[in-house]
């Protein structure tokens, strides 16, 4: 049974986490996140960082696609802009990493606005196709521009903090996780204000939104800007994490991956972006684990890993769209609701 939800002022009712239990859970999660690197193996730390990067990017895509209703198949390409910016700055300028990340994000936001300009004229699928086209163009630019190292791409030095190189998952964890957490918090805040409401209004009924006082182009472009800013930051984190950026680092398949992540997690919910990105990052690892178990009996299992993963991705997209269109977040909500009423109604 849910208790303790009596509120005495509007601020309490507008809070992100409004029950004591929720606050407790968040506190526990933070504590766990702080303790995690000290107990986890490098493999798990590696995965945690990867999950966090994907959460950051998926949250960005969720703002654009899940909340504003503008489908993009360019999220990976936007990430590449951030990644290349960070790599170039790190190699040629040697500026501090936080500045590099910020510049990467801002530059990506500019690119995002450019890609978003057709969004007033074309909608829906046409826009999705325009973002594919933008991905192709960006890929070409990175593969041919001397500054970005052509097909070889760029190898970059690690991020440095007070002379300390952040080159192990343990150290990178302390960079990636807080940045991601701030980004998710920012996204959650966005939807407590008029900006977020405008995004949702555009998604649900863009024509009447205009008559109610929302300038469409401005907010569509703003959504593109925020979303690609997130992608750029995520791409920058990605660059610091892998330290090699090539044109093939961010293929179209990755854009589909992020789209799949928000579909599976739940479009238009912050929790959905988190759950979906973590889930989709873990699925290949789970498959690897299963393949390892099966190998003694079926030696070729590892060779099948790549195609099975492709099939599972596809099947997850299709399955969630048909059977659970609101994604994991909706399942989580159902579980919560069950406990809110338990034991009076089961």
């Amino acid at each position, binding site marked *: 049974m849910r208790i303790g939800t009596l509120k005495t002022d509007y601020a309490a009712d507008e809070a992100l986490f409004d029950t004591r239990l929720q606050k407790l859970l968040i506190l526990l999660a933070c504590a766990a996140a702080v303790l995690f690197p000290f107990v986890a193996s490098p493999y798990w730390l590696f995965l945690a960082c990867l999950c966090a990067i994907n959460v950051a990017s998926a949250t960005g895509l969720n703002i654009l696609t899940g909340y504003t209703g503008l*489908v993009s198949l360019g999220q990976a390409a936007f990430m590449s802009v951030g990644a290349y910016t960070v790599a170039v700055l790190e190699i040629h300028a040697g500026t501090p990493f936080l500045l590099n990340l910020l510049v990467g994000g801002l530059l990506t936001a500019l690119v995002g606005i450019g890609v978003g300009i057709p969004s007033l004229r074309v909608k*829906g699928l*046409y826009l999705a196709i325009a973002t594919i*086209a933008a991905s*192709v163009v960006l890929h*070409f630019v990175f593969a*041919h521009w001397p500054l970005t190292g052509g097909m070889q791409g760029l190898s970059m030095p690690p991020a440095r903090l007070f002379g300390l190189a952040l080159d192990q998952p343990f150290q990178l964890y302390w960079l990636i996780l807080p940045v991601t957490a701030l980004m998710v918090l920012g996204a959650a805040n966005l939807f407590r204000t008029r900006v977020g409401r405008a995004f949702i209004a555009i998604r649900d009924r863009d024509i009447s939104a205009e008559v109610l006082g929302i300038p469409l182009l401005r907010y569509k472009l703003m959504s593109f800007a925020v979303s690609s800013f997130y992608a750029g930051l995520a791409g920058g984190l990605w660059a610091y994490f892998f330290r090699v950026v090539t044109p093939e680092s961010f293929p179209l398949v990755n854009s589909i991956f992020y789209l799949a992540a928000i579909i599976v997690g739940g479009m238009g919910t912050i929790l959905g972006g988190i759950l979906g990105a973590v889930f989709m990052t873990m699925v290949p690892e789970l498959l690897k684990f299963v393949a390892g178990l099966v190998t003694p009996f079926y030696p070729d299992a590892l060779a099948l890993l790549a195609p099975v993963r492709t099939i599972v991705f*596809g*099947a997850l997209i299709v399955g969630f*769209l048909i059977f659970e269109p609101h994604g994991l977040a909706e399942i989580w909500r159902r579980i919560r609701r069950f406990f809110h009423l338990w034991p009076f109604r089961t």
Partner: protein
Amino acid sequence: MTDWLFLTEVFLAGLGSGALYAVTGVAFVLIYKATRVVNLAIGEILMLGGYAFFGAAAGWHLPAWVALPVAILAGALVGAVVERGLIRPMLGESPISVFMVTIGLGSILAGFVQIVWGADPLRLPEFLPSAPIFIGEAYVAPKVAYGFLAAMVVVTAFVLGLRFSRGGVALKATAADQAAAYSVGIDVPRVFSLSWIVACGVAAGAGVLVGAIGGISPTMGVFGLSVLVVVIVGGLDSMAGALVGGLFIGVVEAFAGTFLGGEYRFLVTFSILILILMVRPYGLFGTHEIERL
């Protein structure tokens, strides 16, 4: 001095591959007209056709004239299953969701093909006559020429069939207004099924031709991206647009590939795509109203 003969040969080669875009584009348009589904998996279905032919001809050692129908039937079967199992449950959902279902489908098909036939590129057994063909003085690779002829026959059959058959009328009625078509007694669900079956069969057949020319591989589905450009340029709901767009994009790719280098092909076609989206989002021949999706 410009070498006219060479230019002509490039042009003809472009027409050859353009015809394959056109025929796949026509299949795409058929599905779109009937069901308003943008089928991004068309490239993967085409790929499946190529592999089905390979399986029948190289695996089961069937002669080519049997293997080709096998491939087409395999495509049609997949079309039927997909329409029933994946598309129909999505009826009434937003077009975006259905579009993403087809993305998922493409992923499933690509993985499936890789599991059965492996990741390496394969060559289809030769089944087309290989005597060199000259048009005037210009040389045309025989496979390309036969591919062109076959594709043109199919496209013509389509255009005529749509204009003069009962099925064509039913399709047009469904495309114009599903509810109205249903209320005057047109079996709309059957139009849905048939369009998927026919379109996927045609795409699979095109896959055999594409595979005969360039070989088959699990990444052959990218062909679908070029087809996407073709149908956007021509207009999503226009058969004539698919034909013209296909030939146009084929020729453009041929010239871009020859004079700029292979990696420029996509850049050029997608730049055209962006241009079209900005200037004429419903394509050269498409219906204006579909701008609001």
